[in-house]
């Protein structure tokens, strides 16, 4: 990888005195799909939140497009094109679908309408339900809304935190199809998943996180073929 769009070096994240993440380093090439997999509590969300500026890194350097963004606040990163789709979707349940979408374009005044129209075209179900309270949508629809809302912010890199969590297998297929499409438009994707097999199958490159540290990394298809990795870290499903 010559010039990674995102690089993390020696990241440490603490919650109070508890170390959640230790000495984590990884790189994401522009246009690629990179996944961080690992069990619940391995520190995947902490890594993602530190990159997104929602958590302060205790140590380490995070770079985005060559700039040191370690101390940047979340709103500045969103404006710069680093956008997260958070765990648990975090849609605003009492606002309508349309209002949720327009919040995605907080920093995109002039292109907001065009972006919303584009998203409605891709997700007709959101167009149909645009006047409904977002809390009334099904889990799968809420996940689509959360992804769509992030797309309206025009991400150069999209960080997805457990997008398949709590969804029926058929809906998970849809979510992964959407991720594949996003990636085909040239947007770089970082995918954090417990569903490791699924994530590695979709990704170019993978990192395995265990209790706050990276234990394995490599091209995703190699990790997927590595019996030791599968047995020890990914479990049998």
């Amino acid at each position, binding site marked *: 990888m010559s010039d990674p769009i995102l690089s993390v070096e020696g990241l440490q994240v603490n919650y109070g005195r508890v170390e959640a993440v230790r000495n984590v380093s990884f790189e994401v090439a522009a246009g690629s799909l990179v996944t961080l997999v690992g069990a619940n509590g391995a520190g995947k969300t902490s890594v993602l939140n530190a990159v*997104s500026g*929602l958590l302060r890194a205790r140590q380490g350097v995070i770079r985005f497009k060559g700039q040191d963004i370690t101390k940047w*606040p*979340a*709103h500045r*990163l*969103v*404006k710069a094109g680093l*956008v*997260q789709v*958070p765990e648990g979707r*975090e*849609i*605003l*349940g*009492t*606002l309508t679908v349309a209002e949720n979408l327009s*919040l*995605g374009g*907080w*920093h995109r005044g002039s292109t907001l309408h065009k972006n919303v129209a584009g998203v409605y075209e891709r997700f007709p179900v959101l167009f149909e339900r645009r006047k409904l309270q977002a*809390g009334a949508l099904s889990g799968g629809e809420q996940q689509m809304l959360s992804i769509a*809302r992030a797309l309206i*912010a025009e991400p150069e890199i999209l960080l997805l935190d457990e997008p398949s969590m709590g969804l029926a297998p058929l809906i998970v297929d849809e979510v992964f199809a959407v991720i594949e499409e996003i990636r085909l438009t040239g947007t770089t994707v970082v995918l954090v998943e417990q569903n490791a097999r699924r994530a590695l199958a979709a990704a170019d490159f993978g990192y395995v996180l265990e209790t706050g540290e990276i234990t394995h990394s490599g091209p995703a298809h190699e990790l997927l073929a590595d019996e030791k990795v599968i047995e020890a870290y990914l479990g049998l499903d």
Partner: protein
Amino acid sequence: MQLFLDGIFLGSIYALFAIGFTLVFGILDRLNLAHAAVFTAGALVGIEIVTRLGVPIWLLIPMVLVFGAVLGILIERIAFRPLAGRHDAHFAGLISSIAFGAILLSLLQAMYGADTRRFPADIFTPTRVEILGATVSLLQVVILIISVSLMIVLTWLVAKSKLGRGMRTIAENPHAAAVLGLNVGRISSTTFALSSALGAVAGVLFTLNVNAASLGIGHAVELKALAVIVVGGMGSLPGALIGGLILGVAEVLAVNYIGSSWRDMVAFGLLFLILILRPQGLFGARKTREV
């Protein structure tokens, strides 16, 4: 009619104070107990400005608005932001805002002493006008116009502006707001600035109404404002407005028909009654949060 109007004048001041109080609560989920000290500070600093500079009322109000806004930003920075990450942030903020208020009152006492202060007697000519058979002073009408227009501006801001959209998003889900790229810190501090600006102006209007300000006026109003926002529905702006007006009218009627010692009895009795009939308050919003 006379009594009713007097009640409305008084109530509009309560409402203005309460609306600032409830704004911070409704949007940031924090009770700012320094709000009473801001009210007192607004009154005393307002008197100081008029005494020293002799400015007319239309210039005084914007100056006090700015003063209050600055105080609000300080309150957010000093009493609330450093505690934001704690899981007991609600309670910690409550205590630290009481401390901030106490410090502010001590400063005011050091600067202006503990005596009652008044506006210079000659600056506001006591013109009287007749409305619907009742005699009111022009000053009272001006007070009402100022407080009502400020409340209208605030309500518009929260309902229609981009800032207001940000505020409502933070009210619903502060984490989601941060993920979406809203500058949560700045919007929070603007919320405090607006709240305190209104609180400080309420102090000036209250003082103009009775032409006396002492260090204790904030505390007298604070409990009433809490009653008002509970009755109106915690966090509801129209609730604070209507609640304030009801309290003002109830107080004036109680003083006149029952006796001044019954004033608080009636006011807080009303609070109990409304809460028994409508536990969520008049305009209580059902707070549903996504799990």
